[in-house]
């Protein structure tokens, strides 16, 4: 535990760690202010399809809607911010030249790498939570609360979640979002254990995420058959928190698959780290 806090302190002492938080803060604050200013335009674009057939009353553009909207727009970009720190966790020590100093200390390599991994997960959770809470709290302050309308742009369909159920659904979505992003952290962590500098793991992890996302979304039978084997196909499990009824079985399946990826990636990282030659 002491090692974990030590690693966490180290990670949060670096200014690089705060790039992600700052980037998210800028994006969320600016987006929400602009959305507040152009609320009617957003409403028109989102509800254009229904306004031909329905009169829509009530506070559709509320804080919960804004939170879902921004999370939907940014869940592809958040992995990049996660890799900035997770990809530097192990390789950063090699880059700074302190790896020998670290590994001659009493704690075993397994304990050191476990502490580093837990720190990467902690950072991931903190970042996603910061993003989600900033979206929700600022959204509620600017737009108020109300029923949540979930609408897939351009499609004739909605899911309406009554206001009373929304906070719990949001918490479930936040937890699921954290869980799905831990796989990106694990992947970046594995690459970090393999590399001697941080650029490779960061770019490598993002390349894998982008390639998997592209493959998973190409509308060809080959890629459709391939998509169940890509972890990115399960990363949108947070969106299922807004389905009616909540598809618990599907959420559990995705969560287990992502969890197995975490275990597998960390296990490989640990083996590599334990066998790492630091003498040459």
């Amino acid at each position, binding site marked *: 535990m002491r090692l974990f806090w030590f690693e966490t302190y180290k990670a949060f002492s670096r200014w690089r760690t705060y790039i992600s938080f700052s980037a998210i803060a800028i994006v969320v604050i600016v987006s929400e202010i602009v959305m507040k200013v152009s609320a009617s335009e957003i409403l028109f674009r989102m509800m254009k399809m229904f306004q031909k*057939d329905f*009169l*829509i009353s009530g506070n559709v553009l509320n804080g919960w809607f804004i939170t879902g909207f921004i999370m939907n727009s940014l869940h592809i970009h958040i992995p990049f911010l996660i890799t900035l720190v997770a990809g530097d966790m192990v390789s950063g020590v090699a880059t700074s030249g302190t790896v020998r100093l670290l590994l001659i200390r009493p704690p075993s390599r397994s304990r050191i790498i476990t502490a580093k991994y837990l720190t990467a997960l902690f950072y991931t959770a903190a970042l996603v939570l910061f993003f989600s809470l900033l979206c929700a709290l600022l959204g509620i302050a600017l737009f108020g609360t109300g*029923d949540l309308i979930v609408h897939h742009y351009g*499609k*004739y369909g909605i899911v309406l979640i009554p206001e009373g159920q929304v906070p719990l659904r949001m918490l479930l979505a936040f937890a699921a979002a954290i869980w799905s992003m831990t796989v990106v952290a694990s992947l970046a962590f594995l690459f970090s254990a393999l590399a001697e500098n941080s650029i490779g793991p960061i770019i490598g992890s993002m390349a894998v995420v982008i390639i998997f996302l592209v493959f998973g979304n190409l*509308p060809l039978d080959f890629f459709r058959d391939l998509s169940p084997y890509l972890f990115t196909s399960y990363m949108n499990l947070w969106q299922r928190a807004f*389905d009616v009824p909540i598809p618990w079985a599907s959420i559990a399946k995705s969560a287990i698959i992502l969890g197995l990826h975490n275990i597998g990636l960390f296990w490989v990282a640990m083996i590599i780290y334990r066998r790492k030659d630091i003498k040459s």
Partner: protein
Amino acid sequence: MKKTFVLLFTLFSLCSQWVRADEEAVRYLDAIEKKYSELKDYTADVNVHFDIETFKTPDMKAKLYFKAPDKMKVESKGVFFFPREGGFFNPALFRRDDVEIKMLELAAERKEEVKLKIVPKKKEKVGREFVLLIDRNDTLIKQIYMSQFDGRETKAKIEYGKYGSFDLPRVILLTLDVPSMDPGEKRGLGPFEQKSERITGTIEITYANYKVNTGLKDEIFTQK
């Protein structure tokens, strides 16, 4: 010469029959307008139940305000989706000056219902066509079939109840048949794009607690 005369006579007879039929059609709508001429305003509690696969929503409740000739407002605590066409009752919706009326099925004496085709003249309603099924005995619109140029089709079946001296809708059952994607939306990669499917389903609108001719003020309809 004889043949031409027969042809002209037949044409003339048919024309006069059509003109008579259209005049009769106008009379049916006039009768409805007259029947509700004393209906100045009403309020009612509305419950909307969606039975559409892509609409996952609990029943929505609201209060509906109507003031003749065409002021309408819904007030709800939460988000409320209310069908624009056929969702509420406005006896002056098809005023003879605003629409072209055609008789679709000639009413034989024993027939209780007639079908009229209505084409709005107003600019904002161009591209829509309505077919009304009118109960001749009760002077009530029992069904409204609406079609729009972009392929949206709606059918409203109206059940009436007696509220004061007026027959007002108790239940309106709307059947929707609309494209699943916005025609303006382009998705996918050209040749792989999925064909646009249609969404069908019903919306049941139940009315209760009518209050008729309470003297609703215009300000109610201008408030946000």
